[in-house]
């Protein structure tokens, strides 16, 4: 019963919290700019509105265009079930679940990018090309970080690699973990199309990545994309939280609110980064990503030296 309740909270939280993260980011940015900003719950309002709207489809498109949002949302939702949120367990957990996590997100990317190409628009093709190009470099950085965690924990299960088991290692191998943390934060920013990689609010399609890729989607399909993106942000945010704050109190009524607070803190941090940095020139993006790979690689070298 206890696990059932735990899993129920996990699923409920994972499905409802993500849009709030977007709100916190927007609010933080507004704070920095001296504006009031949109309400914290704006993303929820957007989702409700989009679901009720009509849709426009280009005659160029096929079923792939409609499959893109569905696959993107479903894979992100399944990925959420693999991440341990509090005291080291997730609804789905098995040896090698970390590989499934990475490849589920890959499947989502495959179809989102294909859907963009289905429109035949040069802008969307450009966005898709950038998305898959940068993901190529983010993937090794993510896996190098996983290697560090696998080496430290001796486990190949996310539940054993993150959270509680990690706490003592922060004292002994803190340098490695800090490097991974930094590298994964870069991965979070690029995977979720955040500044300095991509500016979701820019006005020029030529400079966008994620936003221009989903330019032709409308109505419920656009809602699915927005929600899927929020879920993906939640996945990476939770990874960062479990890596950076591995300690739990052991009492569920304290741990869950604590987790939510930590997630909101990560969202606020993203907001701070977005407010204080400018978007990188596109040609400089790979440089930063390779740097992220190298940071994690140094983490391994520190461990096995």
């Amino acid at each position, binding site marked *: 019963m206890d696990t059932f309740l735990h899993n129920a909270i996990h699923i409920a939280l994972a499905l409802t919290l993500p849009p709030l993260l977007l709100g916190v980011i927007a609010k933080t940015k507004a704070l920095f700019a001296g504006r009031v900003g949109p309400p914290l719950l704006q993303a929820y309002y957007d989702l409700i509105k989009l679901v009720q709207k009509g849709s426009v489809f280009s005659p*160029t498109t096929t079923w792939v265009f409609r499959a893109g949002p569905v696959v993107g949302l479903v894979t992100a939702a399944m990925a959420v079930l693999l991440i341990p949120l509090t005291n080291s367990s997730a609804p789905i957990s098995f040896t090698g679940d970390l590989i499934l996590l990475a490849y589920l997100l890959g499947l989502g990317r*495959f179809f989102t990018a294909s859907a963009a190409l289905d429109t*035949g*628009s040069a802008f969307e093709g450009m966005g898709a090309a950038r998305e898959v190009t940068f993901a*190529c470099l983010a993937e*090794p950085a993510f896996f190098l970080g996983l290697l560090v965690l696998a080496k430290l924990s*001796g486990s190949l299960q996310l539940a054993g690699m993150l959270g509680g088991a990690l706490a003592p290692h922060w004292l002994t191998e803190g340098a490695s973990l800090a490097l991974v943390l930094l590298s994964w934060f870069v991965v979070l920013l690029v995977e979720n199309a955040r500044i300095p990689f991509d500016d979701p609010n820019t006005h020029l399609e030529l400079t966008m990545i994620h936003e221009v890729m989903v330019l*032709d989607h409308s109505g419920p399909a656009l809602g699915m994309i927005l929600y899927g993106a929020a879920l993906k942000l939640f996945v990476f945010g939770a990874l960062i939280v479990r890596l950076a704050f591995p300690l739990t109190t052991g009492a569920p009524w304290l741990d869950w609110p604590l987790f939510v607070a930590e997630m909101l803190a990560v969202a606020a941090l993203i907001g701070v980064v977005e407010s204080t940095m400018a978007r990188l020139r596109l040609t400089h993006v790979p440089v930063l990503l390779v740097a992220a790979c190298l940071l994690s690689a140094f983490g391994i070298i520190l461990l096995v030296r």
Partner: protein
Amino acid sequence: MSEALILLGIVIAGASGFPGLLFGKWSITGQRITTLLAVLGAALGLGGIAVFWTTGDSQPIALPWSIPGAEFRVAVDGLGAIFLTPIFLISLLGNVYGLDYWKQTRHPQNGRKLRLFYGVLTAAMALVVMARNGILFLVGWEIMALAAFFLVTTEDDEEEVRTAGWIYLVATHLATLCLFALFALMRAVSGSFTLVPLQRELAPGTATAVFILALAGFGLKAGIMPLHVWLPSAHAIAPSHVSAIMSGVIIKMGIYGLVRITSLLPDPPAAWGGVVLGLGAVSGVLGVAFAIGQHDLKRLLAYHSIENIGIIVMGLGLALLGRSLGRADWIILGLGGALLHVWNHAVFKALLFLSAGSVIHAVHTRAIDHLGGLAKAMPWTSLSFLIGAVAICGLPPLNGFVSEFLIYLGLFGTLGDGPGGSVAGAALAAPALALIGGLALACFVKAYGAVFLGTARSESAQNAREVPPSMLASMSVLAACCFLIGLAPLLVVPLLGRGISDWAPNLGDAGPRLAVLAPLAWVTTMGLALIGALLLGGALLWLMLPKVLLVQRPTWGCAYAAPTPRMQYTSSSFAQQLVGLFAWALRPRTQQPRTLPLFPQKASFHSVAPDTVLDDAVLPLFRISAWVISKFRVFQRGSIQMYLLYMFVALIALLLWRR
């Protein structure tokens, strides 16, 4: 029983092309008879394998042979059965596909030749896998190599085809030369040409020589980077069902050779495993990087074969490391992943080549940037290609994910602290595999998007029609295999287990241990859950889409009112950034217009990514060696009596030396 059935299949498949020769150039009957025989032969072969797997019955057949040292000794074992299966399966499907793809009435000049050598090739490959005698192995190997040469040069009236065939012929004979030396060396150690595990410990020098010869000889056939130079153009210019069997099966014969020879040798030094693992990672990353730069659909797929061979070789390297350091789990996961990837690659690469063949059949071009928008006219071909693309990227819920999953688990395992300790260098292959996965995804989004999505970029692409059912049938069987292995990997675990046990006999039965090491039941659960959730999500979207407010408007071109197909993002533009990142290896050549005058004139932009290894290393090397060899021309007088004299002198010299 199983050996007899497979041998019968080999004979029938090998002879299947001959009746066709009796019929005329324009006769469709000859083609039908040939195809029927080839299908029958392949089906018998598959039946024989099934008998072996169900009964475990294996009675090696040994017949004397008049050649000194040779013996007609054939047998089936767990390892052989794994490699035999794709030979017969892809041959069967390729033959069915060929019925409409290479119709005798449309190709009167070369149809009969193609089918003759298709059958001979199938038979020769099966013979290679069954052979238990070095000379028999080499005979089968050479027949296979030559049959493949005639298949590659099917359309030998074209210059491009002859060049590619020539490069292939040189490469394959270099490989055979290495194998001659390899088997001679092994005979010197063991005392006979029979392929049985070596009992004696090898001297370090001999062992290294055997390893290097095997790696060069079999690596040339498998297309391990940098020995891949023959592969891209040979795969590109051959008819597509030939490309399917070349990429799906022939290059696996190189892998088979490596696996078989390493199974015969005593436990190798750890450096071998490291070298093999490193070569695999290089092949994988550079193979896919070259693929991204290609503008030719089949050349792109060919470079992906190099990438996938790299993944297989990585698994084999891990297994070798496991044997050196006494780690059973690395052997089981590494070799299990490699062997499963041999199957998976055979299935999805054949599927992709057959789909590409259908595109060529309909549009008559391989240039990706002249295609586009085919998903509407050819929905089934498009779906087949999509399934193959998702599978080759290693994405769940299809088969590619399962084999990569096994290799990942093994690579992550090298970090642990069990016996043999931690081999951190080996673990670095895991991020390399992740990079390969990411690049493959980029490449196949590009290929699928540019060929099937958007709008047609040429008139012939606009007028494309779906291909006939016999071609679609072959493709759908392969697509079903992708789903079957992806969703029910536990079905193949016992078969893989037998192969692993044959490779490392002291492991005992590896099947149950593989099932324990890898949570394959979870793969099934998650795969089914994923498919269920996708269907649910699709239904949800369908329900949410208001039927009244559904509007059709042209793609939004940022307020540009009259977009044309030429304004779409091309495959070259899609790949441009990644090609730039790998420019140090690809060395792409571009020719771009200069925007000097005030009033711009008509200008054009070209970019090609040629094969760096072939153009910048192999060809210069061959030019130098040709110059050196030309000094020996004095011996080539072209007169028969001189050659007889050479032979006589050589024989006398040998007799004197043996004394």
